[in-house]
């Protein structure tokens, strides 16, 4: 076993669960959507909510259309007696990071991390415009697909890709999703019409409702809960300038920096779960993470097959970990993103013990 952790404690993903991601879940409240996933992930370890050292979640009030939406969702955890708990208004991947830090302090040996998002009640393209600079950009309502199309155009102009290559990414993702029972779009899906040129329907993520949960554990506790824990040997995240004119959209400096800090380049990667909601973003991330053709990228189908906003990044970590649990990967990289055109990026390296 050649694993080297760069931090005080060895921490692993020991269990992962997710909902079936769907275009709409009108009949379910957020609590009703989250609770079965929490029960499933706890059942995988035999732990009860009260035995968890720390709980952290990620979600966004803007998707729910109301303030403090997460206060009700906490009911799904069964937070009584009172629990040590926190919440990030970010993708659940960052909640996992906060939980990992908590375990590093030694104050907890286990953590429950969950995330959820219901995009169906509103127009997610419009909602996401509210995350832009409120004085100069947001009043113009440039939607997330239009911004991603700018990035795709920059990539094509730079000779980094072309529309056929982008179509192949979409096709590969949705074909991979055939074996993922939780994915929303499975099997070959036509590339479709232009949404915003050069991006066609197949280059864009579906609108999804969904939830995911992960359990983290340290050292021997992890070994006791999971046959083959997915050790987080490195994890880091970085943010870039907000203004699109201040960044080279054909590159992801923050992903590369986070990858260096997480130790991605210190070994061979066999699997990559990338949070690339648009096919063009996979091109950028592959370059930043130096992933060759030998790496299995998004075997789950990725965000192009299901994109529950706020949970999609955590799902990447969960899917990568699940492959290690099943013995299908020895060293995987998982990635999550936030903000327009990959502004903020988190990278984790997950490794299984080798016999």
């Amino acid at each position, binding site marked *: 076993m050649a694993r080297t952790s760069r931090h005080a404690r060895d921490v692993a993903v020991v269990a992962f669960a997710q909902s079936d991601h769907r275009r709409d879940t009108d009949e379910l409240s957020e609590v009703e959507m989250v609770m079965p996933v929490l029960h499933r992930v706890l059942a995988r370890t035999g732990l009860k909510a009260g035995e968890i050292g720390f709980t952290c979640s990620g979600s966004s009030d803007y998707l729910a259309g109301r303030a403090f939406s997460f206060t009700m969702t906490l009911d799904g955890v069964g937070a009584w007696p009172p629990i040590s708990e926190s919440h990030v208004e970010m993708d659940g991947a960052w909640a996992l990071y906060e939980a990992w*830090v*908590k375990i590093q302090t030694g104050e907890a040996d286990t953590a429950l991390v969950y995330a959820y998002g219901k995009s169906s009640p509103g127009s997610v393209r419009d909602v996401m415009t509210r995350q832009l600079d409120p004085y100069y950009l947001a009043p113009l309502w440039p939607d997330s697909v239009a911004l991603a199309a700018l990035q795709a155009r920059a990539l094509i102009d730079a000779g980094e890709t072309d529309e056929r290559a982008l179509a192949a990414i979409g096709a590969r993702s949705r074909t991979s999703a055939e074996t993922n029972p939780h994915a929303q779009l499975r099997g070959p899906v036509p590339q479709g019409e232009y949404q915003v040129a050069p991006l066609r329907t197949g280059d864009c993520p579906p609108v999804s409702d969904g939830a995911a949960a992960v359990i983290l554990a340290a050292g021997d506790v992890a070994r006791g809960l999971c046959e083959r824990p997915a050790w987080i040997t490195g994890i880091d995240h970085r943010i870039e300038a*907000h203004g699109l004119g201040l960044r080279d959209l054909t590159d992801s400096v923050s992903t590369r920096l986070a990858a260096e800090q997480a130790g991605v380049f210190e070994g061979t990667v066999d699997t990559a779960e990338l949070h690339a909601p648009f096919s063009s973003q996979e091109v950028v991330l592959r370059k930043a993470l130096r992933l060759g053709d030998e790496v299995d990228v998004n075997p789950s189908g990725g965000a192009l097959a299901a994109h529950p906003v706020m949970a999609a990044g955590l799902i990447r970590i969960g899917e990568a970990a699940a492959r290690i649990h099943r013995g299908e990967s020895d060293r995987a990289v998982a990635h999550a993103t936030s903000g327009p055109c990959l502004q*903020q990026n988190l990278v984790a390296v997950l490794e299984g013990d080798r016999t």
Partner: protein
Amino acid sequence: MSKEPVAVVGIGQTKHVAARHDVSIAGLVREAAVRALEDAELTWADIDAVVIGKAPDFFEGVMMPELYLADALGAVGKPMLRVHTAGSVGGSTALVAMNLVAARVHRTVLTLAFEKQSESNAMWGLSLPVPFQQPLLAGAGGFFAPHVRAYMRRTGAPDTVGSLVAYKDRRNALKNPYAHLHESDITLEKVQASPMLWDPIRYSETCPSSDGACAMILTDREGAARSPRPPAWVHGGAMRSEPTLFAGKDFVSPQAGKDCAADVYRQAGISDPRREIDAVEMYVPFSWYEPMWLENLGFAAEGEGWKLTEAGVTELDGDLPVNPSGGVLSTNPIGASGMIRFAEAALQVRGQAGEHQIADARRAMGHAYGGGAQFFAMWLVGAEQPTG
């Protein structure tokens, strides 16, 4: 394994006011951050990571404002985390930043919380209707007033206690240059004559709606050794949550608050908080929460909190001063209010609290709560580096 001791070496606040029309959100947060850096005599290059918190995004109408604020807070190329735990968020944000240093993941972290309430309307931001769920009944006051009533009925507290708290906190605020409300003509009679809003809560017993930001620089032992001014050392910090609504919940004295305080005292080695703690910055958005939290935090026996308030124990010159800064009753940029409590506690043990300094304050507590008295975050800071 041992945690790295964590020190507060820089604190910055804005002058809190009803509306900062002269700055953008970015300008507001940068003002607080720059003051914290100046206090620590550090530059942006010394900061390894940024942890930011605020209350609901609906208050300013910006979803995930950390994305837009990354440039203003010197976070480009660095890790940036955004915490949101309702009203306790300012405290939770500081604790997440503290953990980054304690875990030795980063050495020096900038943490900041803000609210620019003038960009929106907090009352209605909190009152969006939700199908099949109990609404918050026109802002927070409507939710909390029945629990104040329950406290009065349970303890037999006379109905004059709430106004004493408001009168005290508004006078304390006159000594704090950053406080929002500076009511130089305040009298007890004026508080008692103010209109009833949510019976028994009067207008002058409620917090204002403020624009403001608060920032702190947290660092490790090496960073503390270089600090130009005395650091405040974190002796304990904890968060606890419980559901908002369930049959067994005690809204007057939630179990999560008790457990959170007990965890902090355990970490800090405190057995008698009333005697061993020199100043408390307590989250009191409605005046009656002072006696209620005195009991919840273990400073008074159950049913006795109001007696401490009535006897003047919590006054600036009492033996357990509560909210020497003027508290949330005088300054309430909601997302920042918890961090202001944490920062003011740190100012006290650093001896940097100016006119509202408590003489010889060696240990002080910062307290925050949020949701329907659901989320709690607290820390205890001291003038001495913790032992062990």
